């Protein structure tokens, strides 16, 4: 815990550096918040009673959830200290949205913010992105948390090993992959027509499938080239990071274990882009190249649950927006920075249904659900289904709370789906270039909770609310 806060403090110092570089007036508050975070972090490290390296399962659930909450809590300090946000709720919402790589913002006018804060917002997403990947790909397999057993089952080779050495090796490899990707995207953006600052912030938000932009109109005013680069970056961000690593190391045989998800993910992306292109061309009077560009970029943003917005999507026809909502829920691949239910789970659900159908006809046939031509164990199928229903249940409850709080039905649906999948923009007022500033306070807390629950796959978070969890 403490180590993480120290890390966060250091990163804030980096923002101070940015502020200094751009010669902004109010870096002092920023400096203060960095120091506070650092201090708390250091205290935690030194006074930590937990000297042994052993963590049991329940601790793991607790720590995972607390990490996100604490990061967001301290992340609010710069906003509060500089006075850009005057209440705690908004700041917490913004930071939760950052660290969960959601990308929903409470700022009505982003462009007036000091550069250091803008940088901090994007950076938080970048950290959140790498955080979830680490959690899922390196740390969880070593702990064996059940709700993620999916991942450990999916991953190939060395990642499955539970020894300490292997974990740190995995962590290192993932870091390198993530960094290389980031640098690549940054190079392409900077090499294009973007200035240093907007290139780096957009890289951070894009590669982590976050979606914070530094412009009010998100990425719509960027050049076509930059938009395409970002679209590719978003598409990449929805892919399992291990795949890149294995790909570079030419371990094609191991790649096969995720091929089906990869094809499903990419095919759906292209298909959806195609449909959207046709629809936009027909209904919005965009010419074909423009329609294709908008559709391609926006679809990439949807399937990776990134949340950059390329056009005023609230003006697009409702069925398309509805499709976007559905495909947000589907999400990217497991082991990526994207949110949603994840492609793999949806595939399992789909195949399982087909199996049940077949069994009605041939009640005695034995046909397991297969993924990548390997049978999937029943435990995983049942875990997936449980998660699916817990997910749906969360959406319904949150929707209900929001509407009770006075948000309109359409907007509430968009906001809840946007929050829980980590997409960001919703429908109507909070969709497109809109923001969440006008939401009531209680709704913002509900949404922040949805973001956390969605990011940590619901079950991890709900465990903490079971009375049994705290017994003994």
């Amino acid at each position: 815990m403490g180590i993480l806060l120290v890390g966060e403090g250091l990163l804030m110092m980096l923002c101070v550096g940015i502020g200094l570089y751009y010669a902004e007036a109010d870096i002092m508050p920023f400096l203060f918040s960095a120091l506070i975070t650092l201090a708390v972090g250091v205290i935690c490290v030194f006074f930590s009673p937990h000297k042994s390296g052993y963590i049991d399962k329940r601790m793991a659930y607790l720590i995972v959830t607390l990490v996100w909450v604490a990061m967001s809590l301290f992340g609010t300090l710069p906003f509060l200290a500089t006075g850009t946000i005057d209440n705690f709720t908004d700041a917490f919402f913004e930071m939760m949205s950052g660290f969960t790589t959601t990308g929903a913002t409470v700022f009505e006018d982003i462009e007036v913010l000091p550069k250091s804060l803008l940088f901090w917002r994007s950076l938080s997403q970048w950290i959140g992105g790498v955080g979830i990947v680490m959690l899922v790909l390196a740390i969880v397999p070593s702990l064996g948390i059940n709700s993620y057993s999916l991942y450990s089952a999916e991953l190939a080779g060395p990642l499955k090993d539970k020894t300490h050495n292997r974990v740190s090796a995995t962590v290192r490899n993932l870091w390198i992959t993530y960094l290389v990707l980031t640098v690549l995207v940054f190079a392409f953006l900077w090499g294009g027509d973007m200035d240093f600052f907007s290139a780096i912030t957009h890289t951070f938000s894009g590669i982590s499938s976050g979606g914070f932009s530094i412009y009010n109109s998100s990425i719509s005013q960027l050049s076509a080239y930059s938009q395409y680069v970002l679209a590719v970056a978003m598409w990449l961000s929805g892919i399992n990071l291990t795949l890149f690593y294995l790909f570079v190391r030419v371990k094609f045989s191991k790649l096969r274990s995720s091929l089906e998800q990869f094809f499903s993910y990419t095919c759906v992306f292209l298909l959806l882009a195609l449909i959207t292109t046709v629809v936009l061309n027909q209904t919005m009077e965009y010419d074909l190249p423009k329609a294709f560009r908008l559709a391609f970029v926006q679809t990439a943003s949807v399937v990776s649950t990134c949340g950059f917005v390329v056009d005023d999507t609230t003006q697009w026809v409702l069925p398309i927006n509805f499709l976007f909502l559905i495909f947000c829920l589907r999400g990217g691949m497991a082991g990526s920075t994207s949110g949603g239910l994840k492609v793999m789970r949806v595939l399992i659900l789909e195949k399982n249904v087909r199996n049940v159908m077949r069994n009605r006809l041939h009640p005695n046939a034995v046909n397991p659900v297969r993924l990548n031509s390997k049978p999937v164990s029943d435990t995983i199928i049942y875990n997936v289904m449980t998660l699916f229903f817990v997910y749906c249940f969360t959406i319904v409850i949150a929707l209900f709370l929001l509407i009770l709080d006075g948000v309109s039905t359409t907007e509430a649906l968009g906001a809840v789906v946007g929050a829980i999948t980590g997409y960001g923009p919703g429908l109507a007022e909070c969709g497109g270039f809109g923001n969440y500033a006008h939401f009531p306070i209680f709704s913002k807390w509900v949404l922040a909770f949805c973001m956390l629950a969605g990011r940590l796959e619901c079950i991890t978070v709900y465990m903490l609310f079971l009375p049994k969890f705290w017994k003994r």
Partner: protein
Amino acid sequence: MIHFYTRIFNGRLVARLLGFMLLTMAVFMLIPIGVSLYYGDGALKGFLVSVAVLVVMGVFFRSIVGRSASYEFHEKESFWITGVIWIVVPLVCALPYWLIGVLPNFIDAVFESFSGFTSTGSTVVQEFDSVPKSVLVWRSLTQWIGGMGFILLVIAFFKKLKAGTSHLYSAEFSGTVQNKIHPRMTNTVRRMWLVYLLFTILMFLVLLFVGNDFVESLCLSFSTISTGGFSPRAGSITSFEWSTQLVVTVFMFLSGINMSLLYYLLRRKPKMLWRSEEFRFYLLVIAVAVLLLTIMLITNGVAEWQSLQYSVFQVVSTISTGGYYIAMPGGWMKVIPLFLFVLMFFGACSGSTGGGIKMVRLMILFKYVRNQFLTMMHPRAVVPVKIDGNVIQLSYINKIFAFIFMYFVFMVAGAFVLMCCGLNLSDSMGVITANIANIGPVIDTLGAAWSYADLPAVAKIVIIVEMLIGRLEIFAIIAIFSPSYWRR
């Protein structure tokens, strides 16, 4: 042609049963003909022509196509029988609406007919004053027939079917944990019809007693016991006396209960009712929902008594999938349609005439998810899901999961088509959910019932499909459209 379909499944038997069903419908049509003769409402000609068509088609299928059919059948045939009967019979029975001129548009007539037979209750009739009384009776009668279902008629009265009736039974009627009241399927089904008939007569008498006229009592009792929801007047039953509304509420509640439990109730064994976990859950859901809705209304400034009245009525109507509605008291609250929308997912008890996902499925689901959490903390623990003390097998739970997943898929797909037809988000979700759950009327964003009449034809067809899917619990309908069922 005949040769072709007899090879993939026992097509002659399907034809024979279809013919039988069409002839039975002709017999049922005698009731509105009688009403028409008595009141002289000018609908006689249309009904007679329909009867003629039914008889001709029925004889054709039964005695020509289906002659010398063998009575051997398996799972596959039971899906075919169910699917074909459920598509063809409502189509033909749409004739009266069209011929009499109540619904001059044929697609409207078909919509009304399917809405009737699936006991949904969505209506495209707009001017109730000009509708002949016999047609009103026919509408409600279709609900009454569809509430129990064609297949149960077949099982009860088609004596030659021996083995495999339980396949047929489960293809149409949702018996999840089948509590048979008699070891022989035929006898079980006959007893169920008896219960059904008794309750209908009881309700009819009570309605007459509280002062309704003959036709309206008949219509209401047909449509209530079947959890259908057609009303002989515009605005559902808003304009009826409160005593009638109360009677309707009570009988909607009863018809949402498992039929076999009602049988025990009639046999004066009310303890059996309480022993059923599903029934207790049904009560619990209704009680909690009523409480919440009442609180919501009261905080919105509606008088206590009035809000309780409204809540009880609307909650029972939605959960039993009856689908009647009364006017919403007080100011408009947008949270109420959402609340009712959520309730639509529950559905009535299994083995009742109601639709929806069904209580027992949700119960199993909840219990299973709870157990999953437990096993996550204690990975070695073995905690089976139990209903009424019986362990539910995992493969069965899987079926439920699959069912609900498909339910969602069809909802989303249907809502998508409606959106393409130009409806807004909440309307299309609401309409689809209400129809797949066989509830019917939806309370729209203005607080009034939502009108189906102005929808484009495509939307109506989609809704018809959703109603059928909901009524037959998905599998029978998908089955006959999926390639693997066409293979041998």
